[in-house]
């Protein structure tokens, strides 16, 4: 990188190396969208894009939380279960006639609390994040069925109005409130990572925890914070999901953690930590969303092709990251 700045002539056309994975994802997204538009006339409708956001708003929020964790070099397997648990708890409490505002507060507190606990265990007892969050995943999933074995419908006025409210233009294109909430989360997260002390600490720890500690950065506090943030994002994701489905189902979001990790990796965040952007994660989620839309539009392809394509894309992106890594090392 320094050689690039020294030879002034070459810098102008050179792609910044850190952004290459993100740019590759962006290019891929555009190509896929292009294929969709060229194949299906209805695909060019703006509402298709909006629908991708509406259908994946909760995934986006959860993926943003996961980005924090992965940036520190950790992993959080509990997100899918925490999403389900949040939706389940809100549905159960609403069914008991608790006021919506109180339910929101309680539901939003559960995820971060679990995240905080997991972060503390990871930091203080030095157990691998993989195992701790796996236990968290089992715990949250178990809680779901403990609350109720069957899905609970939500009939609360606030929830239904949040679910049905359409914000749109006269042509009939609209987004749901969930999408706006997801955008707010994304903007706050991007700001936090790029411009605050916490954000810089996250990158520093992901880059090298030892150096971060020697530099006097609060490694423990930051590490606990990222799991709490991930828990909070999962909780928000759970609320958005309950807006979307208007119910709490014990088996919803099974395997969501894999989609989320895949989205983060496709978005260019390196699993060893230290490099990546929230914007990349947004693109990663969009790539997954557009794949699903393409497969729905095609109609003849079966849902398992989604999995195979996602697997193939994961491979391509990791290979790309790896090649870039080798070239510049």
């Amino acid at each position, binding site marked *: 990188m320094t050689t690039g700045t020294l030879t002034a002539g070459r810098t102008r056309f050179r792609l910044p190396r850190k952004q290459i994975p993100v740019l590759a994802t962006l290019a891929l997204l555009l190509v896929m969208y292009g294929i969709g538009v060229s194949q299906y006339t209805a695909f060019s409708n703006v509402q298709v894009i909006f629908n991708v956001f509406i259908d994946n708003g909760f995934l986006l929020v959860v993926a943003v939380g996961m980005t924090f964790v992965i940036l520190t070099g950790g992993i959080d397997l509990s997100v899918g279960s925490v999403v389900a648990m949040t939706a389940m708890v809100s549905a159960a409490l609403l069914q008991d006639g608790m006021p919506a505002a109180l339910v929101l507060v309680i539901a939003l507190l559960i995820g971060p609390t679990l995240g905080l606990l997991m972060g503390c265990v990871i930091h203080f007892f030095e157990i691998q994040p993989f195992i701790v969050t796996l236990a968290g995943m089992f715990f949250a999933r178990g809680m779901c069925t*403990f609350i109720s074995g069957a899905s609970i419908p939500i009939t609360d006025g606030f929830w239904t109005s949040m679910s049905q409210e359409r914000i749109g233009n006269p042509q009939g294109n609209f987004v749901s409130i969930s999408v706006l909430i997801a955008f707010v989360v994304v903007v706050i997260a991007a700001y936090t990572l790029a411009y605050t002390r916490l954000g810089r600490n996250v990158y520093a720890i992901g880059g090298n925890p030892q150096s971060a500690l020697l530099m006097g950065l609060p490694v423990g506090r930051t590490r606990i914070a990222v799991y709490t943030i991930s828990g909070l994002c999962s909780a928000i994701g759970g609320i958005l999901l309950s807006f979307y489905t208007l119910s709490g189902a014990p*088996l919803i979001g099974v395997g969501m953690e894999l989609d989320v990790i895949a989205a983060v990796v496709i978005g260019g965040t390196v699993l060893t930590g230290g490099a990546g952007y929230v914007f990349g994660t947004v693109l990663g989620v969009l790539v997954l969303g557009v794949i699903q839309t393409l497969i729905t539009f095609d109609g003849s392809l079966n849902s398992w092709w989604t999995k195979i394509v996602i697997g193939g894309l994961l491979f391509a992106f990791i290979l790309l990251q790896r090649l870039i890594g080798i070239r510049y090392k």
Partner: protein
Amino acid sequence: MNDTMSRYRTMTGHRLFWPAAVLFVMLAANTIYRPGFLSIELKDGHLYGTPIDILRLSAPLILVALGMTLVISTGGIDLSVGSLCAISGAIACMYISKQPDQNSVGVVVTALAMALGVSLVLGAWNGVLVAVIGIQPIIATLILMVAGRGLAQLITEGQIITINSEPYRAIGLGHALTLPLAIFIALAAALLVAAFTRRTALGMIIESVGGNAMASRLAGIRSGRVIFLVYVISAACAAVAGFMMTANVSSADGNAAGLWVELDAILAVVIGGTSLAGGRFFLSGTIIGALIIQTLTTTVYAMDISPQTSLLFKAVVVIAVCLIQAPAFRARFSRRRRNAPPPATIADKPKEQVPA
């Protein structure tokens, strides 16, 4: 007094003590709850009873966990085993279902060979990604975990393939010498792996690669090849486990076969005292770990709690076992103990016994 104390310390310090104690406590609690729990009876020349059931049902998990132990001891992880179980089961069942005579032993052997071959290729794919291209194991195997489920469904065309083949069914439900065949298969695999790793230098080589791949390479060990090998072994173990799972129900379901078995296997390995950081492995611990998980599942079923809620118990057991074994937790615990009356010699004892 001092002698019994130190003997107690060496016993609790043994790496298998806590996993075995947990298993024992669970069995004891079961027996108290349901006095007939440990009874075994002989019917038609076969042994029946809950302990036999636990052993039989834990056989696939033991197999997967054995392969996982080797992978984890090199500092890696293999998330794709569940998908591999589904793929191997799907291929075998698909081939058998297409044959006119499903009961022919030749057909079943061909099916098994084909499925095993494909699994070895997929294991080699994992191995190449990790050892040659140098992708992080967790993400390299995540690719096959996600795509593999799709492949399994592609093979079965999204259907549940039902077969009617006695020889294939025997893998899961057959009996030999009054005991279920599955137990012998798992035992044979365990002995085979143990013989190859503990009676030859292979085990030590694997551990050295897990400790420091670069240093072992400089010391003359072909680290890449060893890492490649463990992923292939893991895939082979997963394939056999896949046969058992599908044979148990005489059908292959690309979606549900071996779902989350990778997580159970990793738990079994960790409960058994093998560190996820690599460098050491304990096959006996892994087997006890797998038995703990299966006993827990059986217990919860017997108590009429839904399978999903059983995850709550699993979470508690996992965290408890991991905390007991965590060096940091032990250090904290023993520090508190040191402040109390007993002499200071206790303090450094637990440190040596902690698995590296």
